[in-house]
C-alpha cells in the first residue's frame, strides 16, 4: 500500500503491494472497437482480470457495455513482451503533462487554454514547456475571465476542436458554472445530438495546506448533478496520465479533478502507451471484511488507516472509485456482495457530496447485500479554516477511518 503523502514540497515514494502495475496482466482481447480506429493501444484493467463478475453472463455483458470508445483495443502480442519493461519514474504533474503532450502530438485539434498555462508553464507546472513546443495558439494564455474562456472552449469544441480548459483552481470555475452546466453539459441533448462537446475541464481542487476557504473547495459536489458531463478524479501518476488521455479522447465533456496536494507524488509508470477506462473504479487493495470506497487524496488516508487495520487483524478492501460520474456500480457492487459492509471516505462536505450520492446509489441497488448501514466519512460542513489545527479537524483523518471500520466490523 502507498505511504501517505507528506507535503507539497516533498516527494513520496510509493511502494505498492497492490500497485496496479504489478498485479496487472495486460488485457488482450479483441473487443468491439466503437470508434472503428485501429490502434496498438493496450487496455489495462486495474485488477488484471477480464471478467470481474465470474458469475452470470449478464455480468459479462455489463462489462462489455463499460468499454468506451476511449478504450479502443486491439490484441497485441507485443504488449505481453513489453510487460517486463521497467518503465520510468515521474511525479504526478509530470504524468499529467506526459499524457497531455502525447495527445497533443497525436491530434492537432487538441489545445489547452487557461490562465498562465503558456509562457508561465502552468501554476502547477502541468503545462510546462508545452507552449514552446506547440505555440501560442495551441497553448493559450487567457486573461482572468473564467466565464468567457470556458465558454470559448465549449464553442470551439462545438466546431470539432478538442480543447482542455484549465481552471487554475477548481474553485474559480464557479464563475463558469453557467457555461459548464448549460452549454457544456446540455448542448448535446438540446441540439438533438448535432453537437458533441469533446472538452476536458481540469484543475486542482480539494483541501490543501492552509490555503483558506475559497481555495479549498470541492467542486465535484456542485457539478455532480449536471446531466451530460462525466467526472473523474485522479490519484496516482499512473491513473493521472491514463485518465488525462482517456478524457481527451472521449467525445463527451469530462471534468478531471486533480488535487493540490498530490502533484508531487512519485511513481513508476510504463513506457508504452496506455489509457485508463473513464468509467472504471480501481481496486487498490483486495480484501474480505469491509469495502472502503474513496477517491483522490483520501485514498492515501485510507491506505494509512489500512496499515493500522491490517495490524489489528482486519482485511479491508480498498477501492478508489475514480469515476465520480457515473459511479462504477459494477466494481462496487461486486465488492459489496463479497464483504457486505461499506465505508465511504471522501473529502466532500457532508451535505450533498459525492459520498451522499454514492450512499444512496448503493442503498438503492445493493440493500439486500448489506449487513450494516453504510457509513460515510466526509469533511465537516464548514468553510475550510485557515488555522492548521482547525483545518485538520475539517477533513477525515486516518484515526477516524480506523475507528469507523472497527465499529462497522463488530
Amino acid at each position: 500500500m502507498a505511504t501517505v503523502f507528506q507535503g507539497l514540497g516533498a516527494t513520496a515514494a510509493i511502494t505498492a503491494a497492490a500497485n496496479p502495475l504489478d498485479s496487472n496482466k495486460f488485457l488482450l482481447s479483441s473487443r468491439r472497437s466503437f470508434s472503428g480506429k485501429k490502434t496498438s493501444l493496450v487496455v489495462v484493467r486495474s485488477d488484471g482480470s477480464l471478467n470481474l463478475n465470474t458469475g452470470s453472463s449478464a455480468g459479462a455483458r455489463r462489462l462489455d457495455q463499460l468499454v468506451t470508445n476511449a478504450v479502443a483495443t486491439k490484441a497485441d502480442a507485443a504488449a505481453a513482451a513489453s510487460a517486463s519493461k521497467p518503465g520510468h519514474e515521474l511525479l504526478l504533474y509530470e504524468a499529467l503533462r506526459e499524457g497531455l503532450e502525447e495527445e497533443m502530438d497525436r491530434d492537432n485539434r487538441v489545445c489547452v487554454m487557461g490562465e498562465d498555462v503558456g509562457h508561465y508553464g502552468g501554476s502547477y507546472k502541468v503545462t510546462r514547456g508545452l507552449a514552446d513546443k506547440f505555440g501560442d495558439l495551441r497553448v493559450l494564455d487567457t486573461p482572468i475571465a473564467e466565464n468567457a474562456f470556458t465558454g470559448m472552449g465549449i464553442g470551439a469544441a462545438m466546431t470539432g476542436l478538442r480543447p482542455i480548459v484549465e481552471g487554475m483552481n477548481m474553485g474559480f470555475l464557479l464563475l463558469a458554472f453557467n457555461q459548464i452546466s448549460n452549454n457544456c453539459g446540455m448542448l448535446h441533448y438540446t441540439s438533438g445530438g448535432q453537437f458533441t462537446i469533446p472538452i476536458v475541464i481540469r484543475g486542482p481542487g480539494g483541501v490543501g495546506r492552509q490555503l483558506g476557504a475559497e481555495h479549498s473547495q470541492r467542486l465535484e459536489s456542485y457539478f455532480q448533478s449536471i446531466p451530460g458531463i462525466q467526472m473523474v478524479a485522479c490519484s496516482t501518476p499512473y491513473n493521472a496520465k491514463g485518465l488525462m488521455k482517456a478524457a481527451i479522447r472521449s467525445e463527451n465533456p469530462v471534468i478531471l479533478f486533480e488535487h493540490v496536494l498530490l502533484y508531487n507524488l512519485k511513481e513508476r509508470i510504463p513506457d508504452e502507451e496506455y489509457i485508463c477506462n473513464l468509467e472504471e473504479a480501481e481496486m487498490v487493495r483486495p480484501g474480505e471484511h469491509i469495502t472502503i470506497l474513496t477517491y483522490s487524496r483520501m485514498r492515501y488516508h485510507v491506505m494509512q488507516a489500512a496499515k493500522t487495520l491490517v495490524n489489528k487483524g482486519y482485511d479491508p478492501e480498498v477501492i478508489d472509485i475514480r469515476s465520480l460520474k457515473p459511479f462504477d456500480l459494477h466494481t462496487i457492487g461486486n465488492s459489496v456482495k463479497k464483504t457486505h459492509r461499506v465505508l465511504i471516505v471522501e473529502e466532500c462536505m457532508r451535505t450533498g457530496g459525492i459520498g451522499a450520492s454514492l450512499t444512496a446509489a448503493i442503498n438503492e441497488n445493493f440493500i439486500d447485500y448489506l449487513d450494516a448501514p453504510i457509513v460515510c466519512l466526509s469533511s465537516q460542513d464548514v468553510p475550510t479554516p485557515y488555522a492548521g489545527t482547525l483545518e485538520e479537524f475539517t477533513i477525515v483523518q486516518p484515526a477516524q477511518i480506523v475507528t469507523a471500520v472497527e465499529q462497522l466490523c463488530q
Partner: protein
Amino acid sequence: MALSHLSSTRSNRLLRPLAAAASSLCRPISTSTEPLVIETSIPFTPHKCEPPSRSVETNPQELLTFFRDMATMRRMEIAADSLYKAKLIRGFCHLYDGQEAVCVGMEASINKKDCIITAYRDHCTFLGRGGTLLEIFSELMGRQGGCSKGKGGSMHFYKKESGFYGGHGIVGAQVPLGCGLAFAQKYNKDENVTFALYGDGAANQGQLFEALNISALWDLPIILVCENNHYGMGTAEWRAAKSPSYYKRGDYVPGLKVDGMDVLAVKQACKFAKEHVLKNGPIILEMDTYRYHGHSMSDPGSTYRTRDEISGVRQERDPIERVRKLVLGHDLATEKELKDIEKEIRKEVDEAIAKAKVSPMPEPSELFTNVYVKGFGTEVFHS
C-alpha cells in the same frame, strides 16, 4: 427612404427598358440580376472606423428574395403566436417579427461556412440559415421531427451543417461561445467569420466584455452584433444602460451603428464587417431594430411602451413595407404579384403547420438519448 431616382441617373437608364415593358400586357416578375444601386435610409454612424458607403449594390432578384424571405418569417412568427395561444406551443416563445431585416440582410452578405450564434429569439435566424418551416413548427410543438428532435424547444434551434450554432436561453452566454467559434476558425485558418448576436439587455453582461477583450487581444474573426430593440424584456434601454451607444461600448474595438429595419443597410454593414474582421480583428455592429411582439408570448408588450409607439414604427420603419415600396417603385413587380407571393407563403406556412400538428411526439426512450455520446454513462448498472 431614398429611392434611387433621387441619386444617380445611371440606374434610371437601366430601368427604362423595364418601364417600357411594363406597359405591355403581361410582364413576369423581374428575376433580373442587373445591378441596382439603392441608398440606405440613413448613413452609418461609425466608431473608430471608416463607415461603408450608403449606396448599396443589389439587384431585382435579390430584392424580391428579401421580400419573400422576410414575408415568410413574418408569417411564420404570426402563426407561432396563434399556435401558442392555442396551447400547441408551450413554455417560452420569443418572436422576431419586426426584426426580420437583420437576419435576412446578414445572410445576404455571408456564406454557410461563416458561423452565426444568437440568443433565444432564433426562429427566423434558423430559417435564414437553411432551416425548413416544418422543422421549426415541429420543434416548437415538441415533435420528433423538430430540428432538435423535440428536446430543445423554441430557444434551442441549431443547424450544424449550415453554421448555425443556436439558440441559447441564458442571456449573454452565447457570446463567449461565439468567441470559441471564431477561435476555431482562426485555429483552422478558415478565412470565415463568426457573427455573435445579442440584445441590448445582454449588452450589460460582464461576460460580453470578457469576450470582447479576448477577441480583440487575439484578433479573432468575430463580429459582435447588438440587436438593439430598445427593450430588455420590460426595461427600456435608458433604464438599464448608462450608455445606450452599444456600438461604442467596445472602446478600443471599432463599431458601426446601422438602421436594422433597412435590409440593404444590414447587408452592407455585414459585408463591410466581414472584410474588416478578417484583416483587423473584431468589430461591433449595433442594429437599431424593433420587435412588435412583447419580449415573449407571456409578455403583452404594452405595459412598458405605448401602442402608438408600436404602430408608429410599423407604419414608418417596417422592413417588409420598405422592400415592398422599393420593388413597386422600381417596377420590379406589381402589387398583385406581391400579394400573390404573400398568399403563397401563407399557404406554405399553413401546410407546414398542418403537417407538424399530426407528426409524432418523441419516443419515451428519447429521454435518455443524446445525454452522452453513444449513451455511455447514463445507466452503468441495472440491478
